[in-house]
């Protein structure tokens, strides 16, 4: 049985900070690269929500599966996908993790059981149910972690998936990233019941709300959930209360919310707060912080260089892998 208590030593604490910072810096760079037109299509930033992916990923083994949305850079990085291949994907290079075909919204990595990168809101939940069903039927002790926004909770596929997972007691950890908005639609204008964890409970799924800005709280809750799932207790649900600091995508004028609201949330930011706390507790000093930043900057520089040097998939390969090529 996995230990559900968090043994917070300095090393682990700094690991958490570093992981969140890697996401933050990666995405800040992506936003710049978008302006430079290196990255195109839709780009959805996770900035402000890093604690969730980082906290949850601590509790998964390499054999577990991860299913995410179009806002999945953070999950992919925290899952351990190489930043090089991710950045190459953002560029559309064939060295990218999806051969360049997916871009920002469709990061995939079979090796780390990272099943996307799904851009239909709610559409990935049934996939998570199926992955967990396969694991259960094959007698494996694996967990599928399924991330999605609170907006997805209104879709019929949420409903059907929660019911199936609960009915069949499948090993799914549902992680709802409640950032209060679905594009420009505030939660209270889209759900009659705004406590998403209560919606989950209505399927008899054990569910709780967690401070999504607190990486430690997330990790503790996820560890508890994953342990219960591995023990055969069926699905668990975490509603992580968070906030997206940036626009929905690069095309969003943010007419639907006040600057002041955004500012207030920024002050609760997961990187900011956790950084302060580490300083207060003496686990981190300015030199240590600078070292981490420098390492990330180096990783990012490598990733950008890798993407820049990447190549385009030949046009002749356009229809490759629509179907599996088979030897005659």
């Amino acid at each position: 049985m996995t230990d559900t208590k968090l043994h917070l030593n300095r090393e682990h604490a700094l690991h958490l900070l570093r992981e969140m910072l890697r996401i933050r810096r990666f995405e800040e760079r992506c936003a710049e690269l978008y302006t430079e037109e290196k990255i195109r299509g839709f780009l959805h930033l996770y900035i402000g929500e890093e604690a969730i992916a980082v906290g949850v990923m601590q509790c998964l083994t390499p054999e577990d599966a991860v299913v995410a949305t179009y806002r999945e850079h953070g999950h992919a990085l925290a899952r351990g996908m190489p930043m090089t291949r991710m950045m190459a994907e953002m560029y559309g290079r064939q060295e990218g993790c999806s051969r360049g075909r997916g871009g920002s919204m469709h990061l995939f990595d079979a090796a780390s059981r990272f099943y996307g990168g799904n851009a239909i809101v709610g559409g990935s939940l049934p996939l998570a149910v199926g992955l967990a069903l396969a694991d259960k039927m094959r007698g494996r002790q694996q967990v599928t972690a399924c991330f999605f926004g609170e907006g997805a909770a209104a879709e019929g596929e949420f409903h059907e998936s929660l019911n199936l997972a609960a009915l069949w007691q499948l090993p799914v950890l549902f992680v709802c990233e409640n950032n209060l908005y679905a594009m420009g639609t505030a939660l209270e204008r889209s759900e009659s019941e705004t406590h998403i964890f209560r919606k989950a409970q209505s399927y008899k799924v054990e569910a709780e709300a967690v401070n999504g800005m607190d990486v430690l709280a997330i990790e503790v809750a996820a560890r508890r959930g994953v342990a219960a799932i591995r023990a055969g207790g069926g699905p668990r649900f975490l509603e992580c209360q968070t906030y997206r600091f940036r626009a929905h995508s690069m095309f969003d004028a943010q007419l639907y919310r006040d600057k002041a609201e955004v500012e207030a949330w920024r002050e609760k930011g997961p990187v900011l707060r956790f950084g302060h706390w580490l300083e207060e507790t003496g686990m981190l000093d300015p030199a240590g912080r600078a070292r981490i930043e420098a390492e990330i900057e180096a990783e990012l520089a490598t990733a950008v260089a890798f993407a820049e040097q990447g190549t385009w998939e030949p046009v002749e390969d356009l229809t490759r892998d629509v179907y599996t090529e088979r030897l005659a």
Partner: protein
Amino acid sequence: MSAETRETSYREAVREAIRDALRRDPRVFLMGEDVGRYGGCYAVTKGLYDEFGPERIRDTPLSESGFTGAGIGAAMGGMRPIVEIMTVNFSLLALDQIVNNAATIRHMSGGQLNVPVVIRMACGAGRQLAAQHSHSLEAWYAHIPGIKVVAPATLEDARGMLWTALEDPDPVVIFEHVMLYNRTAQLASDAGPVSIEGAAVRRAGGDLTLITYGGSLYKTLEAAEALAGEGIAAEVIDLRSLRPLDDATIMASVARTHRALIVDEGWRSGSLAAEISARIMEQAFWELDAPVGRVCSAEVPIPYPKHLEDAALPQVEGIVAAAKAVTGR
């Protein structure tokens, strides 16, 4: 074909195919509404629940998108699910999963992930089930790159294509026309796998090519028989695979007969018949002695009363008349 044969129904052939797959491969399971205790809405799966139990003959709640998506996920997770959607009309609820997920994931992931799911569904009209239970949407499915689509019309195909579909690494949709389930014929006890690519010539003839599939095959064969009585020798092609289409077989026949008629239960506008006509236009135009014709369903939601349902669907007389028009007689 020297093995013993047995009088079998299409329904039984499908059931045998499922049973066989479940026995061969522990990764195979069947999932859908009422496939288990009820025995299947068209009684196809009767008995399988008792034989294989609730895990492998898995009754689902009414949630087509959820369980179809779960089948896709389970396929990615290493299983070989057979998802049954009661009828194609209800598959409208599952199209997000089929089109946005099953059909895209391999390509979109750069070839990393496969979705070896098989989705079976009943289709077609003829049982007076009216406007919400009588669709023929094969043309829709055949439009989607990333999935394969088959429509077994014979018992051999119904028996043999499922295993081939399960061995295929990509998603395969199988259409079973509701009017075929009660059809019986002799089936060899050792009837083996059948390819899911490639059409079959069901009757040879030199005067014109009749191209069809699924539930319309027997009407078309009947029409060919009637035409023979009038001295017109019709070749009948059963497409079997609707995606990919077997252009070679079609064009080879048209090159011999110089005339073609397509019989398709789908609504005429945007039918699969249109695609075949367009391909003949592109690949065999100079062979044609007359425009390719189509016999399709009338463009109406299928009505309940028998006389109107019959009038809405392709029928033998209509096929004969259209074939004569194509041959100029």
